[in-house]
């Protein structure tokens, strides 16, 4: 059987320089992937800047991408409404919970007294 297919199943030798070629390809692949990562980072930055710019252009600030200082400025300028319910309670907890905001000399800290009735 093996006699029949000996010619076609000869073990051929690959062209020389295979390892050098592999090293070159890996080097190229490394460079390409590094370029790809840089491009992704630039694209992400452009998208964020674009989203913020678009929101600003539309006159509707996006609270999800703003710092606390910027949020306060927007609220102060009337661009964002003041929070109506600074402390969120579930419907079931409202009947048994009392909250009272304590006036402090600073706006940096918000302090609440919370009381609840336990069965």
């Amino acid at each position: 059987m093996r006699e029949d297919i000996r010619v076609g199943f000869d073990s051929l030798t690959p062209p020389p320089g295979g390892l050098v070629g592999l090293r070159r390809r890996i080097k190229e692949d490394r460079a390409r992937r590094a370029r790809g990562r840089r491009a992704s980072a630039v694209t992400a930055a452009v998208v964020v800047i674009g989203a913020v710019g678009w929101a600003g252009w539309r006159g509707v600030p996006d609270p999800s991408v703003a710092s606390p200082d910027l949020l306060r400025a927007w609220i102060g300028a009337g661009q964002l409404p003041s929070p109506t319910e600074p402390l969120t309670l579930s419907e079931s907890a409202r009947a048994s919970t009392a909250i009272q905001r304590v006036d402090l000399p600073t706006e940096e800290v918000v302090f609440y007294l919370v009381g609840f009735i336990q069965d």
Partner: protein
Amino acid sequence: MRDEELEQLYARLEKPLCNVVYRWLWSMDEAQDVVQDAFVRLWRMRRRVDMTTVEPLIYKIALNAAASRRRLKRVWRWVSLDTIRAPFSTAPPTDEVLSVREERARVRHAVEALPEDLRRVIMLCEYSSLNYDEIATPLSIPAGTVGSRRHRALRRLRQALSEGKTDA
């Protein structure tokens, strides 16, 4: 997997891998290209590669790449004019050269006629140093099936080659 380990693996497996892939593409340059591609893919996944099973894995990557390149070649052959161009040669071939060419053409025809699953098994059995269990892994078949497919492939090759001789 470190760079040196990858290079050692390449040095050890380049020839058998090229010989396997060659039976899909019938060009040693292209076979080497596919094998290098397979190693670049392996390099990309080097952090999660298990060195104990890396050999069957590289055969699997190379075989899939070869099958994919072969499909692509078929499409290009279909849309290009290369199929109707005869190979150009200035010197008339000797009888010996003609005989070897004919023999190779016969074997190539017989191998081409094999279904993909049989071809994968017979080529891995012939050229790789993998055992049946290791050949079964990249092909996702039981080890027993490797033996039966090898037997079927050899029977078909024998039949095709004897028919070719009778025709000649």
